[in-house]
């Protein structure tokens, strides 16, 4: 059963993952599939590890084009030294993405004539993000551009630039094939006036191994300001940008302070057919929910103690993975917040060992209009766990006339399906009739199970005396 779900997930193009074969009976929630960040084209994935003033930012690129044309331009607060820059294994970010992905959980109804027991399956889905910006080589200094530092890190050639004027910097960048979109002067100028430098990276073909995958760039720095510059991305008006922020802290949840943070609706029962189109479901839901907030909200899709998960879309990250992502406090003195592991029960999968880390996954769809300002964050002490989780309930199929309980069960199924259809319509904005049609095709309708059509719900007084 598990393998079949997995195969289905792979066929859908969703990221597959290793799953130790647990006994299905003992397992009350496991991961069957997930909604990948891959679903969203050109999304950026940024991991922010934050403790006090210390920050490690990991910028992952889903860039799939010619590596020769890849370039990245990021405003930074200071001139980093060579040791502050690193290139990470892309699998780290993918793992974090999978671990935090919205998930689908399955339950199977038992024969209502027997004691009702539930079995739970889970599917999870996470979208994957891309970071694609343009960059190139260097040139004259009459433009008022100073190359503050020059590094070779992995396959990248990295320059740290400062400039007097935005015009000069943009001219220089364009001359060096960092295609800066038209209209970026103001944004670049504003960053320069705030004393910021520009971190620009291009791929050095001599050091590139020829794979199409570009590794994420990491920068470690210290600054009071906990923010993420997004304004350069809004300049080229090619529609909305997609961004996933994975924030890891010691204390708890991370929220935006200049935009509303909203929880993605979760824990709803949805029709069974969603399993086959979980990716579509997630995309439609995100789009619909974004519209409901007028496009002006940051969505929290996951907030969880990194020591465990329930159900798990992927295993929690190991200590070494966390350290590679920049979690700098793991080896520093006493670990304050290591929460006691929840008592092992079916479905909970603890990580390799408890860690003092809390992860928040934020999903932003933005453009210059809805998000005029850079994202400002703050770390809060809120450690309440939250996940995007959607539930499938497989009905029991059999002779609904074999006992009275079975008859009642059949009737309850009809009203349950009705609710599922409505909640799916509400979540995604899909037409209720389309949903009900699809459900009927799959045999999830009153007529399919031989229950008299609308099955009007009897009033309580009708049930009272049975007349």
């Amino acid at each position, binding site marked *: 059963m598990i393998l079949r779900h997995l195969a289905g997930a792979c066929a859908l193009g969703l990221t597959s993952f290793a799953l130790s074969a647990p006994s299905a009976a003992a397992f009350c929630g496991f991961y069957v599939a997930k909604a990948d960040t891959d679903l969203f084209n050109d999304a950026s994935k940024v991991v922010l590890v934050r403790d006090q003033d210390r920050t490690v930012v990991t910028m992952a690129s889903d860039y799939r084009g010619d590596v020769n044309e890849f370039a990245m331009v990021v405003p930074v607060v200071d001139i980093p030294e060579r040791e502050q820059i690193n290139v990470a294994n892309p699998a780290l970010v993918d793992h974090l993405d999978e671990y935090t992905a919205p998930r689908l959980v399955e339950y199977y109804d038992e024969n209502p004539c027997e004691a009702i027991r539930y079995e739970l399956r889970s599917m999870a889905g996470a979208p994957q993000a891309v970071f694609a910006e343009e960059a190139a080589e260097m040139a004259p200094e009459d433009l008022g551009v100073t190359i503050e530092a020059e590094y070779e890190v992995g396959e990248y050639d990295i320059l740290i630039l400062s400039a007097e004027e935005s015009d000069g910097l943009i001219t220089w960048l364009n001359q060096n094939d960092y295609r800066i979109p038209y209209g970026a002067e103001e944004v670049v100028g504003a960053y320069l006036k705030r004393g910021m430098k520009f971190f620009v990276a291009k791929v050095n073909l001599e050091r590139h191994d020829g794979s199409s995958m570009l590794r994420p760039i990491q920068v470690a720095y210290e600054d009071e300001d906990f923010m993420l510059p997004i304004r350069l991305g809004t300049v080229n008006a090619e529609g909305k940008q997609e961004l996933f922020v994975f924030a890891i802290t010691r204390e708890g949840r991370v929220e935006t302070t200049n935009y509303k943070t909203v929880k993605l609706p979760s824990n709803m029962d949805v029709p069974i057919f969603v399993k086959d189109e979980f990716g579509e479901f997630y995309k439609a839901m995100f789009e619909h929910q974004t519209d409901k907030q007028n496009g002006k909200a940051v969505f929290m899709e996951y907030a969880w103690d990194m020591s465990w998960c329930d159900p798990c879309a992927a295993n929690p990250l190991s200590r070494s993975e966390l350290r590679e992502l920049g979690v700098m406090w793991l080896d520093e003195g006493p670990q304050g917040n290591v929460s006691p592991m929840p008592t092992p029960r079916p479905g909970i999968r603890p990580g390799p060992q408890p860690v003092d880390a809390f992860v928040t996954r934020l999903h932003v769809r933005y453009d210059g209009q809805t998000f005029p*300002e850079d994202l400002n964050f703050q770390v809060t*002490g809120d450690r309440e766990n939250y996940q995007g989780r959607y539930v499938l309930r497989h009905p029991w199929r059999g002779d609904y006339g074999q006992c009275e309980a079975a008859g009642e069960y059949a009737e309850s199924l009809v009203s349950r399906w009705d609710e599922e259809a409505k909640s799916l319509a509400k979540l995604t904005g899909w037409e209720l009739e389309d949903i009900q049609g699809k459900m009927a095709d799959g045999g999830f309708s009153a007529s399919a199970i031989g229950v008299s059509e609308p099955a009007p719900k009897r009033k309580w007084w009708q049930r009272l005396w049975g007349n």
Partner: protein
Amino acid sequence: MLKLERALIRTHLVCSIIRMGVRTRSVRLLKAVNQDARHWQILALSGLFSISLTTSDFGARPMALFAAIVGAMFAQAAGTVWVNARKARRLADTGSHWRGSNLAAGFVGWFAGFQWKSALITSLSLSILLRANSLWFWLAAAFIAISAKFLIRYRGKHLFNPACIGIVVVSLLAGKAAWVSPGQWGQAPIFAAFAIGFAALVLSSAKRLDIALGFLVAFAAMLFGRALYLGDPMAIPIHQLQSGALLVFAFFMITDPRSTPDSRLARLLFAIAVAAVAAWLSWEYHIRGAMLFALAGLAVLTPLLDHLLPAKRFQWTPKKEPSNDSQTPRGSVRARPYVVRA
């Protein structure tokens, strides 16, 4: 036919009498509410609390409000008893008979002048602005807020806005365990309209519209000025101004008539100073909720400004208070004649 007409007329008459009754009742209710500017504040803050509760996933929580009320009322009760006891002792010392004090009325006397309205306002403001991971923080913040009102005074005026100092002290002491969430209001215009409408009402009777507008105008000028300097689009300062936390601060905190200067000019100067420090703290040090820290830090300016620019002291209820009453004004207790013995 005639009968029917008469019946109709009678019905009509009865209806108009009832309608008049309703109208007078609502007028009376309105008057009762209008008697004290704090009634409007409680109503408006309750509205904001409900909006935060229902529209935000990380908004105000009823249990937090309850915890804050417990803390605030406890401190208020303790403070009231302390003030009354001190007053009784002073009257006794000056030769006045002990019966002249409120304590003559026994238990009720001990709690004479119990300002539950002010404590409720503080609790509401706290639960709207402060977030924490334990209910104790709201309780502590409210307790600190009200205690500061009784303990930190200068010339009969408390120095700090209670809610403000409560939040500042708790968020400084608690580290990440307590925080201010300025961004969780969203930009729902309905919220702004609601807050402004209600606040205007509040301020028209508390006569502190000047400081609210002074602060908002000064703060907006700084945001726009910075945007102009940086070359930012005006969408940025406009976005920054659409913050619910800013409205709560401007209309319900900096306007507190008991902890702001008495003269209008002094109030405006104070408002501009708070706006400038708030802007500086948030730009230079990236402090979230910088306004609260600015207000708490600059509270020491109030006595100075009152000294330089003296004016008549504000009282919540337009009642003639005995001139020696240096405490928070009394609202609910009827004035009793003082028996003075030589």
